[in-house]
């Protein structure tokens, strides 16, 4: 795929320094890493020239780990310790996973944190692993691949997530990156990443739909592309529907056809592998022959016609169209408004999917890009901007949250605070009051979803606001504020308006990992744990300090004299000197403190700079001129 040429204006960073940044598509079936090289987004291959890394992790009793092709090859030989499609378990409790009877894994219902259930875990030969740890193994390998190819340490990465991922799934993905030692520049929605790659490459203008059917997730996003603005109007999907489900249909058909029941884990894996191969064959051929020899010695030899495969998978295809209809309705658009349909994800190669999409949109979908790679390529383009290698003045991304965020009110009902498809970052405050006379504490239950009953929504977190002064019922004014950042991650704070009693949380505990858990996992993962941790913290803080010094220096040169008086400039320079002095030591907590001090010293300056940019955005005209 030919991608755009990008010059290096060097506006935001020193021109000599190219910061190494990558885009990572952490997929259900395969994962990829891409970067912008000489202005062109390219996928980084492994030593054997392969771009796709199978998202498969195998654990051994000695604690060692295999990732990718070799692990995939062992999946039916060692099914319990070889984890496939781990993305389906991210941010999910055991109860969410559904039927586990056919699964080879030994699930462990994780200890709940607070009052909410924890993320499911898997018992392997190397101990109990959380999906976050499994995913981090995949990310570590991609990071190593990138650092080797680029010849240096990464500044950071954009990691893509399904647009329909909820807060718990996003947080789990970010934790996995952190565990892999990757600085996350942004979590980017997969369809949006694809739209960047497609839109920039084709100079597209108008309203487009991105239909993204991956290995385990389905997303649809409706985007408006105009004058370099990528604006997501609506997104919808199903985070538990993908190519895997098509394999499963063939697998079930094989069982029925051959009168098989209660297969062992390795036979199950074997037949699922054959089912997937058959699915891929049927993209090109009218029929395919499925052969396998089971553990019992029984031989399977069955012919599957494309026609039959289409019939057995028809309702899966139909299930993708429901979210498409909803997204269109939320965007307030009709099929006729859609200028083009971009197909993303390996599963969109299936002819029945392409036909259904073409019939629905009454136009042939755009298939001139590699559906496996386009997400990683788009993520790399955005990573290059976010790392500061390129001025982002050329385009602007406006994305949304996929599911409404709210809290539980009396009677187990959901009160929506931020509705789905709100553009991020977003914040909304709502006032609540006490239910009983003299009530001094209030429990806040944060949920995500569209249903009226809290029990039908996803529970994200619970926290308590204590110390409310005793008043009669209904007299207290408790303001609950939701803030969603540009990664789509939520933080919630509660404040009693009369007294200022406050509680604040970043929504995490329920399905995410605590800082302590991450620290433990980091320790487990390295032999010289303590030393490594110290060395890593020192290096991270040194990098951060240098970036900060450079950013503040540039800001001072641009605007210092215009926006600050001598005292203000001197205060910031003192902070810079303080940080430079600390950098000479190896005392990483002291470096961190100096970073915080310098940041605090620059807040007012940052606000003044922003004010200047904002007035410049309206062309520097006075309001009175505009009103004429």
């Amino acid at each position, binding site marked *: 795929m030919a991608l755009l040429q990008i010059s290096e204006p060097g506006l935001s960073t020193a021109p000599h320094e190219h910061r190494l940044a990558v885009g990572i598509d952490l997929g259900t079936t395969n994962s990829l890493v891409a970067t912008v090289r000489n202005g062109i987004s390219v996928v980084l291959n492994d030593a054997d020239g392969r771009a796709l890394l199978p998202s498969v992790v195998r654990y051994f009793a000695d604690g060692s780990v295999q990732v990718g092709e070799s692990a995939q090859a062992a999946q039916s030989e060692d099914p319990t310790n070889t984890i496939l499609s781990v993305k389906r378990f991210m941010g999910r409790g055991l109860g969410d996973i559904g039927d586990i009877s056919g699964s080879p894994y030994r699930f462990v219902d994780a200890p709940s944190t607070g009052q909410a259930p924890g993320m499911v875990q898997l018992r392997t030969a190397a101990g109990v692993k959380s999906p976050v740890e499994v995913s981090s193994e995949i990310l570590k390998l991609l990071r190593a691949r990138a650092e080797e190819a680029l010849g240096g340490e990464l500044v950071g990465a954009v990691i893509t997530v399904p647009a329909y991922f909820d807060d718990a799934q996003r947080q789990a993905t970010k934790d996995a990156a952190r565990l892999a030692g990757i600085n996350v520049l942004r979590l980017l929605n997969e369809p949006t990443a694809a739209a960047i790659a497609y839109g920039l490459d084709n100079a597209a203008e108008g309203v487009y739909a991105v239909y993204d059917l991956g290995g385990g997730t389905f997303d649809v996003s409706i985007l408006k592309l105009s004058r370099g603005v990528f604006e997501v109007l609506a997104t919808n999907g199903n985070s538990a529907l993908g190519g895997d489900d098509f394999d499963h249909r063939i697998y079930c058909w094989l069982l029925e056809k051959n009168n098989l029941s209660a297969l062992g884990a390795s036979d199950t894996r074997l037949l699922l592998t054959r089912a997937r191969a058959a699915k891929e064959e049927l993209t090109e051929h009218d029929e395919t022959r499925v052969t396998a020899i089971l553990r019992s010695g029984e031989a399977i030899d069955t012919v599957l016609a494309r026609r039959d495969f289409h019939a057995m998978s028809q309702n899966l295809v139909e299930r993708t169209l429901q979210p498409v209809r909803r997204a269109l309705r939320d965007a307030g658009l009709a099929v006729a408004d859609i200028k083009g349909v971009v197909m993303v994800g390996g599963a969109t190669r299936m002819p029945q999917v392409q036909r259904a999409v073409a019939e629905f949109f009454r136009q042939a979908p755009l298939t001139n890009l590699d559906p496996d790679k386009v997400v990683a390529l788009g993520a790399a383009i955005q990573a290059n901007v976010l790392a500061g290698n390129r001025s982002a003045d050329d385009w*602007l991304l*406006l994305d949304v949250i996929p599911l409404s965020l709210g809290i539980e009110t009396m009677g187990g009902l959901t009160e929506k605070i931020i509705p789905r498809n709100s553009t*991020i*970052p977003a914040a909304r405050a709502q006032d609540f009051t006490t239910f009983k006379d003299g009530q001094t504490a209030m429990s806040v239950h944060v949920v995500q979803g569209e249903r009226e009953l809290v029990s039908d929504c996803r529970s994200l977190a619970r926290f308590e606001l204590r110390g409310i002064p005793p008043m009669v019922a209904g007299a207290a004014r408790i303001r609950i504020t939701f803030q969603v950042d540009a990664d789509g991650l939520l933080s919630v704070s509660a404040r009693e308006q009369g007294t200022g009693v406050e509680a604040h949380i970043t929504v995490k505990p329920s399905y995410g990992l605590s800082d302590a858990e991450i620290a433990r996992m980091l320790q487990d993962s390295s032999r010289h744990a303590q030393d490594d941790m110290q060395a890593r913290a020192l290096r991270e803080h040194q990098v951060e300090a240098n970036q900060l010094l450079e950013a503040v220096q540039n800001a001072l040169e641009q605007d210092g004299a215009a926006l600050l008086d001598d005292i203000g400039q001197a205060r910031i320079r003192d902070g810079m000197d303080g940080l430079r002095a600390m950098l000479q030591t190896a005392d990483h907590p002291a470096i961190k403190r100096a970073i915080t001090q310098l940041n605090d010293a620059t807040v007012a300056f940052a606000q003044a700079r922003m004010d200047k940019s904002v007035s410049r955005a309206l062309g520097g005209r006075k309001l009175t001129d505009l009103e004429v």
Partner: protein
Amino acid sequence: MQAAASGFQQDFFQLFGLPENYRLDSELLDRRYHALQAQVHPDKFSHLSEAERRVSMQWATRVNEAYQTLNEPARRARYLLSLHGADIREESNTAMPADFLVAQMEWREAIQEAGEARDPGELDKLELRLQHDMHDLLEQLAAKIDTEHDYEAAAGIVRKLKFLEKLAEEIASAFDTIDN
């Protein structure tokens, strides 16, 4: 800090450099929105200091809120009335003329029937009719706010609008039920 606060505290019309009217040029609003986000969006600051990233998130959040408020006619009307100090009392004052309430009940029944019959065509028709009714109310609002400056009467229309918005939600949830 003071200089910065002045920009952040502008009202939404000032922020977009638009006159404080109900009727507005929505293409101009879109252009100004994009121009502002191009300056303040967190994607422009991710490689800069934490202080700048924080200020960027606050600004981008505010610009989004301002845009959504001005872009949706009913929200824009409510916001304008609040700027003029008119108390809408949407929750406390639900007294409506009897014929309006009867019409509401008929609407409810029609939506419920179409939902139960799983008839998207009928829901489409109802939605169109509702949009038409809403459009009428919004036109009345525009006259009361921009021309007559009668904010008390405008508040009365907003209270009616609230009923219609609830009907729109019911139609949307009926569609959702059919899809599931």
